């Protein structure tokens, strides 16, 4: 089934935050984790578009690294935002599934 483009940016944000909820990861580890989690092959351009924005918003932060693969981790604010978004998504999903079941 063709994937809708609506909400892709939002999806990418949630995917990155969810992946980092497990613990700090560098860019390539994030790409692999997101692919395993959602089946979505995210490119470096999309990933860093999201990462830079999340860093600017204070939702993720970079850690020191010894090589050129810099790891990122979720901040407290990032955890709060992720929890809120996941709860909202879950609420909508439950309602949607209930309504589909009633059809």
């Amino acid at each position: 089934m063709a994937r809708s483009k609506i909400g892709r940016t939002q999806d990418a944000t949630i995917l990155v935050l969810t992946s980092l909820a497990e613990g700090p990861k560098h860019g390539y580890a994030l790409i692999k984790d997101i692919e395993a989690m959602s089946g979505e092959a995210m490119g470096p351009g999309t990933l860093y578009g999201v990462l830079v924005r999340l860093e600017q918003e204070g939702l993720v932060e970079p850690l020191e690294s010894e090589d050129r693969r810099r790891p990122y981790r979720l901040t407290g604010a990032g955890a709060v935002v992720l929890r809120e978004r996941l709860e909202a998504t879950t609420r909508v999903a439950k309602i949607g599934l209930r309504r589909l079941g009633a059809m």
Partner: protein
Amino acid sequence: MRIDLVRIALAMHPRWWRRRYADEVATITADVLEEGRSRWLVAGGLAIDALRQWARGPVPDLTHSPAIRRQVVASAAALPIALVIPLVLYTTSYQSYRSALWFQSGALLPSPSWPSPHAFDHRAIKMITNGTNTTMTPSGPIVHGSMSWPTYMSGIGYFLITVLALVSLLGLLTVWSSMRGALRHRSRHSRTRRFLVWSPAIAMVAITGLYLWSNYLSQQQKPSFVTVHGRPVFSMTVLHPLLARMVSDSNVTLGLGTLVGSIVAMAFLASRVELSADEARVPLGLSRMIGRIVPLMTVAYSLWVLGLRLQGDPSSRGQVIVSYAHSGWWPLALVCLVFSSVVSVRAIGTESHRLQHQMLPITHG
């Protein structure tokens, strides 16, 4: 020679991004390409991200002291207004109307800034008889001029500019009133600082005074005839050209001077007085709102200028052509508006996000 698309796409990013992320992204891109992904798709994704980063702007330097941060916020919040107000001042300075209509002893006082296609037909009119102004109702013996669609479009743009400028002014007043108490309290030992706190109010009074003054003077219209393509065209400038120029120039100078003065004063105070996060919250919220208004202002301004440029020949019978003093400045004003849009959205939005997230509790283990 083989062209490295990925390197080109990385080089398209702004300098701040390349300094911070280029090595990191190049390493990850190499990893991804080793998996066999399409170089074209990866480079395309990076090129799109480059455009996104140009629009977004850099991460602010968090080593700044809070005082400097407040200064940045105050200056950035005021920047759009500093550009918007003079723009409105000079667009409202004086207007000229030209039409092939013969108005006999009377002249319409059209108002294209009102968004109605019949603005010329429904407004109260001014009669000019032997140099004396008298007001008449539209039922008088006047031939009504009509408006072409570009004039109408420019009128809508002009109306939007006015509305957005008023909203911006209200925003500035609200920001000032919310900060005034804190600034006055913390500046109580300095008479100069106490005076500076009032500078936005002084600017508002000065601008209102200038507006009333130019409106009062604009009642003295000077009708005349000019020849366009060999046909007589009625022309009306709301002031004598030299006087109109003086009024408009002084409005721009005084309006801009007073406002910039007040902005500098507020930035100066903000740099020396530490505001708490709660006190800074309202100015931050409103400055973000103003940051969103300025792009709308840019659209309205483009509409206004485009409409003016597309107006027809003033000798075409039955149509009123409108022109404004200083409308030749449009490229400069447009560049200023676009610049202020980018600066305000970027600086204010990012700074505001930062401060809000810094206030959230840390729950991540």
